[in-house]
């Protein structure tokens, strides 16, 4: 009925009364019911609410009256009495939160395998992970169970699953989108963002969810831009290429990124070699700061409220709480947390310097394509290492996007990443849109959807 239609297309159809909102809702509900058992995307569905185009929302966004678990049994029966700012804004624009999607428990992971409700399967190959932690939302878009989704990332949890599931994932600047009502993982890092079928939808969702929120003291008072309009202006940019961001890439991934650079050159973008701090530094800095904040943020689940005690926490959460507690302990704080914050400042300054020379730094969110389920559990800190190309942007708080740029030898999607300067989402979306217009790479997405017939 609506094969592969984007959010903006469906919205037009509804606005022009060519279809009714409830027809659209029923269509996607049917698809969800058909494929959810196979993919394990949704933890909770809201079949009653009416609205416009349905979206899949990661289960760490509080939704009033609708169960919100962050994929942890600790919150198995938590029904929030309040609504996150992001979902409030989406609802106000008549978007329908049709259900809450699976994720790594508390967003701790890059595969959805730490979920207490079982892993989500990658729609491209159900023996593989869709990536994480926003794996449920990414898979929902990838299998077209919804035309779009909302995720959040601390360091890669939007970009990496977008890359592995073959969709568009945008991580906005820290503070551009309110964190109010988003169950905190790393408070100084968390960024909500869209997962979509194309750039236009990413711009559309961003234009709804971005902007100052008086309920979040870290949200930026800077005005937002008209992302939809800015996206369509033909602009020329300089792309920075840093060798360190090409280290250890799978040859197929490397080839795809190099081809992408050629595309940009062809449409008149300049390229420039830049030298950035090795992303390896970001791994340890990120690990320390994130674990410290996690240990603090999970302290509220003390067994007194929510009906489940602390033994309900999964292994990964326990590990993180212990490590974070250790790094904040008396006598270790200076050696770990404080030092990590200093290096973080260096990373920030490093990006600021480079963004004086170039508009973007290009790379990939992840050195390899989707892994088989079970691989992550074999190596401790594997997620942190896999996410090393995501962590610098997270530490610096700059925006970045992952867009599909082809398939590897096994037919799995490859993501290309553009990192941009603070609050330059419109530039990132513009460059992404131009790429989309110039190539047929985004048809990767359609190819994925074809496997999931109505």
């Amino acid at each position, binding site marked *: 009925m609506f094969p592969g239609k984007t959010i903006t297309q469906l919205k037009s159809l509804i606005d022009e009364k060519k279809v009714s909102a409830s027809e659209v809702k029923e269509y996607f509900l049917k698809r969800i019911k058909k494929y959810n058992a196979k993919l394990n995307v949704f933890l909770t569905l809201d079949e009653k609410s009416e609205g416009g185009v349905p979206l899949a929302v990661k289960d760490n966004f509080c939704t009033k009256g609708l169960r919100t678990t962050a994929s942890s049994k600790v919150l198995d029966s938590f029904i929030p009495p309040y609504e996150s700012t992001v979902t409030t804004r989406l609802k106000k624009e008549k978007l329908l939160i049709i259900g809450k999607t699976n994720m790594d428990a508390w967003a701790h992971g890059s595969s959805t395998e730490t979920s207490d409700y079982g892993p989500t399967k990658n729609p491209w190959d159900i023996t593989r992970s869709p990536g994480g932690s926003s794996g449920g939302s990414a898979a929902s878009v990838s299998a077209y169970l919804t035309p779009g989704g909302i995720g959040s990332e601390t360091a890669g949890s939007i970009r990496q699953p977008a890359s592995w599931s073959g969709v568009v994932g945008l991580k906005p600047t820290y503070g551009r989108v309110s964190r109010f*009502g988003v169950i905190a993982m790393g408070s*100084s890092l968390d960024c909500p963002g869209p997962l979509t079928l194309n750039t236009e939808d990413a711009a559309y969702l961003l234009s709804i969810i971005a902007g100052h929120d008086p309920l979040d003291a870290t949200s930026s008072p800077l005005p937002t831009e008209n992302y939809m309009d800015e996206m369509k202006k033909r602009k020329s940019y300089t792309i920075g290429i840093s060798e360190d961001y090409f280290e250890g890439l799978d040859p197929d991934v490397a080839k795809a990124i190099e081809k992408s650079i050629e595309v940009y050159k062809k449409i008149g973008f300049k390229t420039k070699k830049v030298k950035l701090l090795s992303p390896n530094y970001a791994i340890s800095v990120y690990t320390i700061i994130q674990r410290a904040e996690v240990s*603090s943020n999970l*302290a509220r689940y003390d067994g007194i409220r929510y009906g489940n005690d602390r033994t309900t926490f999964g292994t990964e959460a326990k590990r993180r709480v212990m490590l974070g507690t250790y790094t904040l302990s008396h006598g270790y704080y200076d050696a770990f947390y404080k030092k990590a914050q200093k290096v973080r400042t260096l990373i920030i300054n490093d990006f600021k310097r480079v963004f004086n020379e170039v508009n973007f730094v290009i790379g990939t969110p992840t050195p390899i394509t989707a892994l088989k389920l079970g691989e992550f559990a074999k190596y401790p800190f594997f997620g942190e290492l896999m996410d090393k190309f995501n962590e610098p942007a997270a530490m610096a708080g700059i925006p970045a996007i992952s867009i599909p740029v082809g398939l590897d030898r096994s037919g799995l999607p490859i993501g290309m990443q553009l990192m941009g300067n603070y609050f330059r989402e419109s530039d990132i979306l513009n460059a992404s849109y131009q790429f989309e217009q110039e190539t047929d790479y985004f048809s990767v997405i359609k190819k994925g959807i074809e496997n999931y017939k109505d």
Partner: protein
Amino acid sequence: MKQYQPVIGLEIHVELKTESGMFCQCKINQFDAEPNSHVCPVCLGLPGALPVPNKKAIEWTIKIGQALNCTINKHTKFDRKHYSYPDLPKGYQISQYDEPIAVNGKLQIPIINFQSNSNNQLPISKEFRIHRVHLEEDTGKLIHKGSDTLIDFNRSGTPLVEIVTEADFTSSDDVKMFLEELHTIIRYLDVSDADMEKGTMRMEPNISVRVISNNQFPISNQLPISKSQLPKYKVEVKNINSFNFVKRAIDYEVKRHIDLLEKGQTPIQETRGWDSNKNKTYSQRTKEDAHDYRYFPEPDIPPFEFSDAYTESIKKTLVELPHQKMNRYIEIFKLKPMDAYTLTRDINTSDYFEKVLSNQIATSPSAPRNDMGQAIANLIINKKISTELSIEEFIKEATELLKPKETDAKLLDEVALKLINANPKVVADYKGGKQGAIMFLVGQVMKEMRGKADAQTVISTLKQVLK
């Protein structure tokens, strides 16, 4: 012989009376409200809720810092202080660690001798240093009912100011006077009810006792004591809600420590509670289970930079503080120190006093009496006229009361003579040098004349006759 000297520092918590909470919009100070009726996701610490700092609370903390002569830090931030307790819904308290709003202050308190009736001399004062003033959120409240413990989160997220002094006190009397002065200042600033019954002001003394050997005599009360001279332990007595209990707790502890020291033992470092029924402290927590609070900067609240213009604008709103006001009353209105002290304990009383005085002077047809200030002070302090009256009514009554009594000179002469003759012993005493004896006669005269005589005139007449 060993000598002992108490070394005492104080932590004082004051709940601010802002309209809304420290980090949320809930109405605070709802003491009579149903439990958990003034709560929201933020003060309940629900998942995803975020704190948004209350500007007024920050402003008022700066004001307290300024009133205590502190340096206001230009750069300040909130930190998370972690500990696990059922009344702390987030598992951490948002507080301030290494960059509090105000530091390095001092407070001079007047030492009033209530026995002395000396006039017009500014009383001596003592100075105590303020270590820091910071802002944090209050916790919920546990209510024990039978075998159940219930939690009321109405208080959770109330702005709470913590004032920490240096260990500058050597006696419980000084502590009490300091606390009373601080209490008065907080009330003057109009930032808190500082009501101890309701727990909006709570006090925690840190107590230890220093051993001084013979060659250090005389014991110097000169403070500060250098860090190396501080005892190696201290005992904290938690959450006391009356000045008298603080004094008693200190006295109890000092004696307990001295007894232990006499036996050659060192008191253990611990936290103790005060049992006001048994009049003693009891152990709550020892050093072994001391918390590691794992402070780190609160990532949900960006740090603050205060401009000079901002802090100056707050400073401009500072009212004249009780100590300065008292000195002014002594110097300008020539009040007795004790009365100046009494009048300045409550800003409403002192405001009333000054209004009466300025109106009285403005409306009086004749030149003001130079003891008018003291006369009005007496009327207010002795409750001769109610301060519930309007200023105009008060002045009317005061004018009546203070009018010099018209004395029937002829009658006075008669009565004086009569009483002198009737009291030969008193007369003899007076003439023998007992000046005070005349007051007996004054009383008798006043009684005889049914008060219709001016006391000064009576005295001078009696003296005249007795010459």
